[in-house]
């Protein structure tokens, strides 16, 4: 298969372990060209290991990885000029200034973007002559993104791009990534912000404990199965047996997931009968609903339903 038509990234059966701790387990992942693909998962899910294997930093222990049709480990020299990499942290000399660092990375590429344009777009001019070690976390992130983009890559790997950014910088970053997509750049991003994945990504892959648990468009994942959700929030903590007794009352196919001691998520048909049973149950166990809302599932609901755990608490 020629590299012009192959997917941007093709991972098959990837397995990576550190000692006896399995970081990535039999993972498949395909990224189509020109898309933004989000790899979503809680901390420690295996996102960074997967990304670093695609970038050629790690050799696959099992399985195959192809990036732009190339083997990222064996054909690394051919691949590197074509990809842009944003590391999760660090990556600059502590004594270097932001613009200086960006100029340096630009000088390693054949047709770099104008450095000043990126400085303006990402608000890096506010870094001035401050050395890297004294930049704020958000400034360091913006510089790191600029360094990934400056070489005009075909494919961009960004690891937690907006971690530590303020809301304004986060919106700028999203706008930049959307513009990159419009101009034909493929982006693979890892994130643990559900909102980021839902808002930006064409495809979302949710990873948990090294395994791919679900893939699809944000629309498919949140609306595809015709299931609605009911969120119940109460004023005092539930009694311990609460989820089980409500589950018994509702019966299948409805599922009750405890979110925390004040709130439950109920997935299933949100009809009048279900609502009636929920109200009756509240009265029976003596809790007062503070809010009872119906809605579409969010990615967080999807994660909760598939893993039985809340996203942030895992």
């Amino acid at each position: 298969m020629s590299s012009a038509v192959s997917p941007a990234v093709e991972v098959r059966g990837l397995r990576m372990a550190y000692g006896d701790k399995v970081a990535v387990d039999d993972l498949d992942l395909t990224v189509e060209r020109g898309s933004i693909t989000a790899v979503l998962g809680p901390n420690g899910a295996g996102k960074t290991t997967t990304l670093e294997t695609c970038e050629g930093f790690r050799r696959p222990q099992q399985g195959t990885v192809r990036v732009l049709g190339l083997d990222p480990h064996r054909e690394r020299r051919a691949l590197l000029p074509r990809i842009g990499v944003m590391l999760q942290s660090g990556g600059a000399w502590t004594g270097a200034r932001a613009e200086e660092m960006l100029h340096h990375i630009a000088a390693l590429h054949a047709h770099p973007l104008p450095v000043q344009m990126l400085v303006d777009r990402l608000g890096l001019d506010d870094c001035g002559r401050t050395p890297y070690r004294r930049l704020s976390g958000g400034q360091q992130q913006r510089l790191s993104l600029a360094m990934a983009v400056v070489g005009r890559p075909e494919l961009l790997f960004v690891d937690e791009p907006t971690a530590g950014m303020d809301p304004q910088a986060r919106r700028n970053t999203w706008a930049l990534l959307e513009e990159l997509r419009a101009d034909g750049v493929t982006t693979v991003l890892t994130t643990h912000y559900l909102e980021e994945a839902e808002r930006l990504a064409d495809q979302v892959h949710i990873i948990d404990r090294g395994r791919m648990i679900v893939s699809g468009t944000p629309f498919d994942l949140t609306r595809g199965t015709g299931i609605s959700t009911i969120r119940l929030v109460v004023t005092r903590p539930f009694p311990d047996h609460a989820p089980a007794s409500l589950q018994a009352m509702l019966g299948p196919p409805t599922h009750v997931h405890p979110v925390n001691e004040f709130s439950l998520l109920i997935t299933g048909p949100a009809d009048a009968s279900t609502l009636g049973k929920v109200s009756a149950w509240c009265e029976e166990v003596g809790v007062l609903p503070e809010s009872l809302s119906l809605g579409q599932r969010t990615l967080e609901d999807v994660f909760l339903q598939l893993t039985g755990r809340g996203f942030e608490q895992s």
Partner: protein
Amino acid sequence: MTGTFTPMPGSAPLSSQVAAQTRMETRLLLRNGEQLLLAIIIPVLVLFAGVMGIEYVDLSLSYKPIDQLTPGVLALGIMSTSFTSLAIATGFERRYGVLKRLGASPLPRHGLLLGKVGALLVVEAVQLVVIGGVALLMDWSPELTLRGVAGALTMAALGTAAFASLGLFVAGALRAEATLAAANLVYILLAAGGGVVLPASTYGRFADVIGWLPSGALGGGMRESLLVGTFPSGPALVLLGWAVLGTVLTARTFKWE
């Protein structure tokens, strides 16, 4: 119609990459106060203090103090730049993900190494001008024969290769803080007792051992070249041996992350 970000990937030619890397590393080195102290200020102070000290302590030297000391102080400068500065800088580059970041750029590893060597040579040229200039003002009169100059340049090149490979070995094998400590400690030990500034003969019964140290070979070779004006074949072979050892050790153990 193409957009602002339409992909147009590619590597700059290796020569421009190496030049960029050399410029960047040189700038960072010369901007760092501790590195400047090590590269320029300490050698110049050693030169002053040494000349004054020799007047009081009789070391039975057969040349005038400034002629005796300058080649060794130049050797000290080479050692500080190619060993201590390089090891510390590289250790922290590893620690802060700079090597990893550059490893994801089009710059190949040999380009990175060439860039580092370039920066070392630029800094050493600055050292030669400053230390040599100060020494000339203090009436240094080196023995400038063709063999002697060739010998001094060979010593500088082999000394840089030997110490740089050993410095990279330390930086690649130890954590950044341990590298900082080890590189400074080794520097102090070799500067004081390694036959760099003073000839091996002044170390009494340790003289033989000192000639086999990279510091003693570099200092001795520089003295032979610039005091006597002959080519120091023995010290050159010793340094070559250390360079091979350092390169093998580095190649086997260096970790980029």
